[in-house]
């Protein structure tokens, strides 16, 4: 570990003379403060990994148990919406990364532009997600709320399933599709919740960025938010293949 904050005398001296307004009193130097908040953000992301870890575990076990049900149920997802959303999210990650760069190089208008783009892309993502959700609601594929097995017992009646030439599932296996949809809603819902929080913070940041708050050299907030945003992106990078893709061909 090479992070030991052994400070040289000069550094201390320098720090004492120039206390930027955003330096909190209990830090000796700005570097220390930035390192600390950055590290804290990473640790927070660790807790997020473990939080989603529980859901991934449940998904893997149940998928392994009820393979045909998971295959049939995943055919209900629209791979085009999913791919489009992946592109949207990756783009938003890119604009976010560019935003961080703009902040670091003190380009105010660039930063505002990037943040706004990220904000909008986030909204687009949620919009598409809403379309997808409403499809599920229409088809009664929301677990716990008048869940309907129609598409699985009689796939010929359902264009989404017919398109894959699905065979009807036995009743007991068809019932297990509810588990798939539960995990689908739990995972994407939890992800969407993170997006909503992120978008809210983005809105606040755009507001502050226009006042020039992040282009004076103090960029930790933007950077840390960037970490969060990319993390949410990574979760999606895994959700996309797990939920939409891996049973596509069957």
């Amino acid at each position, binding site marked *: 570990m090479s992070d030991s904050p052994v400070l040289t005398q000069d550094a201390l001296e320098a720090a004492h003379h120039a206390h930027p307004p955003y330096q909190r009193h209990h830090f000796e130097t700005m570097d220390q403060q930035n390192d600390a908040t950055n590290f804290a953000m990473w640790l927070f992301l660790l807790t997020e990994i473990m939080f989603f870890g529980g859901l991934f575990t449940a998904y893997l076990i149940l998928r392994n148990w009820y393979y045909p049900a998971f295959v049939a149920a995943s055919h209900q997802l629209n791979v085009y919406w999913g791919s489009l959303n992946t592109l949207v999210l990756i783009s938003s990650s890119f604009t976010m990364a560019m935003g961080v760069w703009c902040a670091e190089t003190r380009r105010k208008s660039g930063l505002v532009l990037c943040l706004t783009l990220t904000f909008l892309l986030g909204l687009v993502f949620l919009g598409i997600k809403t379309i997808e959700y409403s499809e599920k609601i229409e088809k009664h594929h929301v677990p716990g709320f008048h869940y309907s097995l129609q598409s699985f017992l009689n796939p010929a009646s359902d264009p989404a399933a017919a398109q894959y030439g699905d065979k009807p*599932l*036995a*009743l*007991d*296996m068809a019932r297990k599709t509810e588990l798939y949809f539960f995990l689908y809603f739990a995972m994407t819902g939890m992800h969407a919740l993170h997006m909503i929080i992120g978008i809210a913070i983005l809105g606040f940041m755009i507001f502050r960025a226009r006042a020039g708050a992040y282009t004076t050299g103090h960029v930790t907030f933007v950077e840390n938010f960037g970490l969060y945003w990319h993390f949410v992106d990574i979760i999606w990078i895994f959700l996309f293949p797990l939920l939409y893709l891996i049973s596509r061909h069957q």
Partner: protein
Amino acid sequence: MSDISPVLWQFLVKWLTNFALFPPEASRIAPQMDALYFFIVLVSLVGLTIVILLVTSFSILYSKKRHPVAVQIEGSTLLEATWTIIPLGLFLVMFVWGALIYFRVYTPPANAMNIYVVGKQWMWKAEHPGGQHEINALHVPINRPIQLTLISQDVFHSFSIPAFRVKREAIPGRYTSVWFEATTPGTYHLFCTQYCGTEHSHMIGEVVAMSPDDYKKWLASSTSGSSLAQNGERLFASLSCNACHNTRPDARGPSLANVYGSKLRLSTGQTITADDAYIREAILSPSQHITQGYAPIMPTYQGQISEDGVIALVEYIKNLNSDYRVQQTTTTTDLLPESEGKAAPAGQTSAGKGMVNQ
């Protein structure tokens, strides 16, 4: 409250006269488990004594009065290694020994007599192969391996017989099993040890271990008329399982004779041994494992048959196996009621002969 103290006094006297540190050893496994238990007690006592000796003797020798100035010592790799390796070694011995016992308790011998136990809030129901059932009690013969196949209808329960040193969780939706061989006739506690709701502490009963003769008498006196397999046979007919599982050449389902214990090839290419758990699953969620060569047409009976019913069906299908019957009769006929021996499939479902499948 006032009469508590004389009562207590009586108890104290009684308790002191038959003071026990562990329950009676009434099963084959009990002395083995106790041997390991006392080994660990011994190691713990030695370890504890060492710790106490070190602390007290240092406290006396190096109290400030006797030893005003401390001598700084950095540490000692040798000592450090000693108290890493010795406990580790001892712990590993316990691990291996414990694992051996664990496997013994949960690996029933092939000739064990099987009793089904269903747990539900808040009672135990035991079903003997001869069709006798009992609530919150279990009668078993001594000197004879008994296998319990447990399942729960609702929440987790745990079937515990301290005097036999065995315990096994009854899980909703899945069979578990445990076995024991009682050695001493007597009446012992039966507890539900897994917290299962309001009346958890009343989900208790008795295990009565009796000599084979007494057991036979008991069986005869508490028979309900038809054996478990016969109950199963009746269910098999009334649920019209035989519509598909029959001996006709155009039968839509596989013949079930000899299925129990055989290795089945599944449509996924895997093979699987058809044990109790498999048969249960085949009835409740048939599409979970599709036998090769058959369509997944069997309907699910989830929600239509109680766990007792499933047990009867399982027992029936088990006994459709003539090989099994042969093997079983060599060890058990003398103990089973007459009817059990003849519980061969009758009428429409006369599968069995010559229909060796898979």
